[in-house]
């Protein structure tokens, strides 16, 4: 089973490396955006694991995107530095929002984050001298690495792939360490975690800021890739989409948001920008809740169970017993 999984991952990795060779610029573009969505979805996970429903993640992407774009455009800061600044600013904004509001639970915290999306959108919209408001911010330089401009779509694709893999590696390492265990414990029973000496306020804040940081990374890449920023893009709709990636993919495993983001953003591609996009996401969410409460990642297990159930009942009790 493990060998099979590793094999699938290797084949998948090779395919992803070959996308620019096999497909045209269109696929390169689409996949680079999928990678951004994967970063966004995965970076929401630490907070969700702590039991904090964050419906405002797109705001932090917006902060990272605008900060990086403005630094690069107005001050000619190299991409590595502007991206890092954007991500750090997103984390600092996360600290400012999270510190007072993370003591709220469940729906109350969610309401704060929803309101925050609107606040950031309005700031981007109304601070015209800086962000150009509703005219949109254009003329953002292409990303560069070590002074070399990544002019082709293919090279930008590899940058996105690299950023995604790095983000996933870091988040995976953290989640599988004691820190991840503490996040899970807070999500499961925060009073018990407290009674064992976990400072839940600090850990929730750390998980939240970490997510904001990587949302900032995704935003920065997005800004230099699309090279045009428009405030309403980072609105409530995108925030809910990030959440839907997590639920449709599955909350129980690290792979959940990755699968969810990849699956939904590829499948919704034909509807992108149209009114059908929202309908598509709502239907996906409804179907998941109804038929796969554990998300897409539980699908192989469910299928195996169906086949097992038939053959197993014949000769032996269930393997769990």
């Amino acid at each position, binding site marked *: 089973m493990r060998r099979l999984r590793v094999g699938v991952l290797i084949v998948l990795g090779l395919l992803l490396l070959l996308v620019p060779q096999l497909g045209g610029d269109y696929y390169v573009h689409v996949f680079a955006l999928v990678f951004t969505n994967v970063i966004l979805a995965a970076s929401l996970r630490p907070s969700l694991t702590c039991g904090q429903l964050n419906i405002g993640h797109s705001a932090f992407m917006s902060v990272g995107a605008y900060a990086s774009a403005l630094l690069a455009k107005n001050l000619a800061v190299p991409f590595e530095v502007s991206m890092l600044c954007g991500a750090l600013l997103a984390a600092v904004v996360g600290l400012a929002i999270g510190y007072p509001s993370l003591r709220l639970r469940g729906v109350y915290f969610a309401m704060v984050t929803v309101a925050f999306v609107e606040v950031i959108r309005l700031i981007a919209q109304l601070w015209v001298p800086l962000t150009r408001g509703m005219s949109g911010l254009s003329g953002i330089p292409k990303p560069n690495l070590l002074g070399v401009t990544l002019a082709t779509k293919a090279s930008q694709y590899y940058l996105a792939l690299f950023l995604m893999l790095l983000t996933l590696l870091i988040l995976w390492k953290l989640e599988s*360490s004691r820190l991840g265990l503490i996040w899970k*414990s807070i999500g499961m*029973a925060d009073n*018990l975690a407290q*009674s064992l000496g976990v400072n839940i306020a600090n850990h929730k804040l750390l998980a939240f800021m970490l997510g904001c940081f990587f949302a900032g990374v995704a935003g920065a890449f997005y800004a230099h890739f699309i090279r045009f920023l428009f405030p309403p893009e980072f609105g409530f709709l995108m925030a809910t989409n990030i959440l839907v990636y997590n639920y449709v993919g599955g909350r129980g495993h690290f792979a959940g948001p990755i699968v969810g983001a990849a699956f939904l953003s590829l499948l919704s591609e034909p509807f992108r920008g149209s009114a059908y996009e929202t309908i598509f996401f709502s239907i996906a969410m409804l179907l998941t809740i109804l038929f796969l409460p554990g998300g897409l990642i539980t699908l192989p297990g469910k299928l195996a169970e169906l086949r097992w159930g038939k053959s197993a009942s014949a000769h032996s009790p269930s393997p769990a017993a």
Partner: protein
Amino acid sequence: MGEERIRSQSESRRVSSALLLETHGLTRHFGGLAAVNRVDLRVAEGEIVGLIGPNGAGKTTCFNLLSGFIRPTAGTIRFDGEDITRLRPHQVVKRGLVRTFQLTTLFQELTGLENVLLGLHLHSRRSLGRALFSRRRFPPDEVARSREVLEFTGLASQADQLARNLPHGHQRVLGIAMALAARPRLLLLDEPVTGMNLDESGRVMALVKTIRDRGVTVLLVEHNMKAVMGTCERIVVLNFGQTLAEGSPAEVSTNAKVIEAYLGAGLAHARG
């Protein structure tokens, strides 16, 4: 579970019979109701003290106050001479006052071992860098110590089971194991044997005695009178948030006021 460590810890800190926990005029109001009313509680190092009383007497509120989950309306709590009245739960634990919960409050989706590992939280050298660059999931010494705690509490064979799949009795013991992993000096047990059969509760109470013999002071709330009388050296009876009586099991069980509080409540129930 580091038997020597615990023993030497308690010996070096203080001669036994020194006062470990002391509350003075501890009071908590909920609206107009005084759930806990001017309670003076004293627990000496090395004791097993029982806190009993009819339902609604304020026992659990007392625990919540001591462990920092709620703040008192008035009064002070001193632990080992230090005023801990205003501390938050995780700060209280850091000083060695660890509680368990009444219901089977566990991390249900984690294994027994992981549950105990979380109890070790305080003593872990955790850092972001360590989490990022270490190849092992958990430091081997912490895993080893968690296994020792499981061994000590008789749960070694359940280490890899999910907590929710354990039988009720084992779940309760796992709760105690987690608290032990946090290296308490004073352990607050909230109804440790409720819902257990005679055999199970006997084993848990024996475990409580062993824990005390290893240098941990115990304060427990329990409705099972046989367990309380057989284990505790001193008993404090609460009624309507106030201390009703205090003394050895024999003294308390023959105290007229205590009998009235229990039987009176029983009669009122029968009539109502």
